[in-house]
């Protein structure tokens, strides 16, 4: 056991091992604050442990042992880590199911659909759900909401937050049946206060905010979700220089991808649909063209199927193509009313 050899205090060593950190490589990509929370120790103690560990792993390398580049991970570790990552629930069990549990952190998810299908509703729901406390199975994080279209309505966010608080306290009561003292501390107003809202009126502002996000999030480490509703709007105005548009969009996608990886957060981007002339007829496609479609890790398309709203996984490296119904209710996104419909795997 590599950790056993580290020159650190016995209590820290015991905490490390009981938390599952037995190898030096498992410590290599952790941030001090994350480790501090994991082990319930102070930040400076965690920093000390990480320093000692990285020094030791460097010594290992000079010995010619199993050297690892600082920050690199084996696929096995990554798999392990991915399974531990919490996901942001959509409040619709069917939708969560096809998403593999919800919206993934460290990934950029693009969601597209026609006007009125519920993109903004889903955005607000996610901004609320990312705040579900850790002891209720959530992430206890905060959200950044970048509104380019002006469709975010505070009254609607409040409505969804109120419904969510009700659901949470119900669940909380179930969890702590014997312990009446455990009260929900989260209030709808707190939820609204934890949504950092940016209203954007031009594409230059949009680029500026996305450049600023890195600084902002490094100061607000509790942000676990960034929503852009929608990425498209200001980029569909007259762009004479289409190459410029492609470059700007590409740069933006790269920045968002980096944010997701660096700060371990989820990025959700909304996109509009447009008609595309293909094979002699008009078909629906997400806007911004082909080069953009490579920019996101996952792609989900929302569409009408009869009188029901459906979501379809269009692209994902890890999820299989599937579709599931969902509905938009007063309380927010929920399971579709017709429960007899099963999820269709394709």
């Amino acid at each position, binding site marked *: 056991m590599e950790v056993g050899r580290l020159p650190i205090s016995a209590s820290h060593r015991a905490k490390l091992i009981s938390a599952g950190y037995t190898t030096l490589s498992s410590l290599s990509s952790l941030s001090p604050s994350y480790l501090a929370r994991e082990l319930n120790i102070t930040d400076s103690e965690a920093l000390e442990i990480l320093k000692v560990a990285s020094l030791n792993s460097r010594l290992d390398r000079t010995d010619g042992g199993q050297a690892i580049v600082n920050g690199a991970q084996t696929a096995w570790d990554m798999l392990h880590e991915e399974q531990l990552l919490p996901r942001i629930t959509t409040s619709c069990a069917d939708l969560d199911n096809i998403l593999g549990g919800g919206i993934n952190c460290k990934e950029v998810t693009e969601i597209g659909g026609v006007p009125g299908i519920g993109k903004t509703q889903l955005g607000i729901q996610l901004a609320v759900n990312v705040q579900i406390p850790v002891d209720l199975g959530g992430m206890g994080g905060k959200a950044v909401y970048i509104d380019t279209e002006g469709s975010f309505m505070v009254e609607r966010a409040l409505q969804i937050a109120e419904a969510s608080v009700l659901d949470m306290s119900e669940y909380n009561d179930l969890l702590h049946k014997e312990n009446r003292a455990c009260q929900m501390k989260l209030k709808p107003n707190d939820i609204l206060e934890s949504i950092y809202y940016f209203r954007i009126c031009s594409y230059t*502002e949009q680029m500026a905010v996305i450049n600023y996000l890195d600084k902002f999030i490094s100061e607000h480490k509790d942000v676990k979700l960034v929503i852009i509703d929608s990425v498209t709007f*200001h980029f569909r105005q007259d762009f004479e220089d289409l190459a410029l548009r492609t470059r700007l969009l590409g740069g933006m996608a790269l920045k968002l991808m980096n944010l997701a990886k660096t700060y371990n957060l989820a990025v959700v981007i909304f996109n509009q649909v447009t008609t595309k002339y293909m094979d002699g007829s008009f078909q629906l496609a997400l806007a911004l063209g082909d080069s953009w479609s490579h920019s996101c890790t996952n792609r989900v398309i929302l569409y009408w199927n009869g009188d029901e709203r459906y979501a379809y996984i269009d692209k994902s490296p890890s999820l299989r193509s599937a579709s599931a119904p969902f509905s938009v209710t007063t309380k927010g996104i929920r399971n579709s009313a017709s429960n007899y419909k099963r999820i269709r795997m394709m």
Partner: protein
Amino acid sequence: MAGVSPENLLRRPLTAQKCSLGCPLLDRCLGGGVPCNSVTELVAESGSGKTQLCLQLSLSAQLPPSRGGLSASSLFLHSEFPFPLRRLEQLCLAFCGLHSIGEFNPLDNVFVRAAHSADQLLDEMPQIESFLSEPKSRFPVRVIVIDSIAALFRSEFDNTPFDLKRRSSLFFKISGKLKSLAKRFDLAVVVTNQVVDFMGENGGMNGLRIGNLKYLYSSGRRVCPALGLAWANCVNSRLFLSRNEEVVAEENSSVNVGNGDTLRRQTRRRLYVLFAPHLPESSTEFVIRREGVFGVDR
């Protein structure tokens, strides 16, 4: 630098300010009226009451907030001619009879301007902006009506890929400008749009379902909002007004002219919420009278 610091949502009013349409039943259907800092679209065929609703809105905007208004004047950009001045006067008379508004003439607070084409409208945006920042009347301008957006685009564009592309980029420019004005001056922006007949499944994407209703029917025909999918992305909320002729039995009281002895023809009108970020699917029936547009409880 402005724009790159987040807003605290609690520092805004928890419900967006709304401007009354001038009828409590219609307002109830819209959660209080037309929201500020937002673009609302009214879609309907001609003769459904779009313009009437807009005129009525520009009057009720002058009411104080305690009575559902914004204490504001409005800018009415019309692209359909002539401007219905007579009807506005008529509505104004009824409005003055209904509300004691004090010592001013409501007509003084409705600014009317013609708009002939989309390019012209875009060119005039800076003028409109400076007009908004220096109010000419006792009230600030808080309502902009464009009646109708479809007429601006009606003639100039061919059905070629190049023209369609130019058209849709104009949509996004105009809407982007309107939204940024709406944000800066906290405006309620209302645009009206026409409908086109649904030409069957080979009519391109016109049959695509957008919003709460699967099909839109008006005057017994299936219709689709004009300007297509691209424009639908440019508005925050979309409302649909339908009208359908109905033959009813005599004893049913009706506002319309009778036709024959025992049967009457009646126009039944409904207002539907097609999509809106803050509203559930809902609809309400309404009538158009001499005194204005009013919802009916049925």
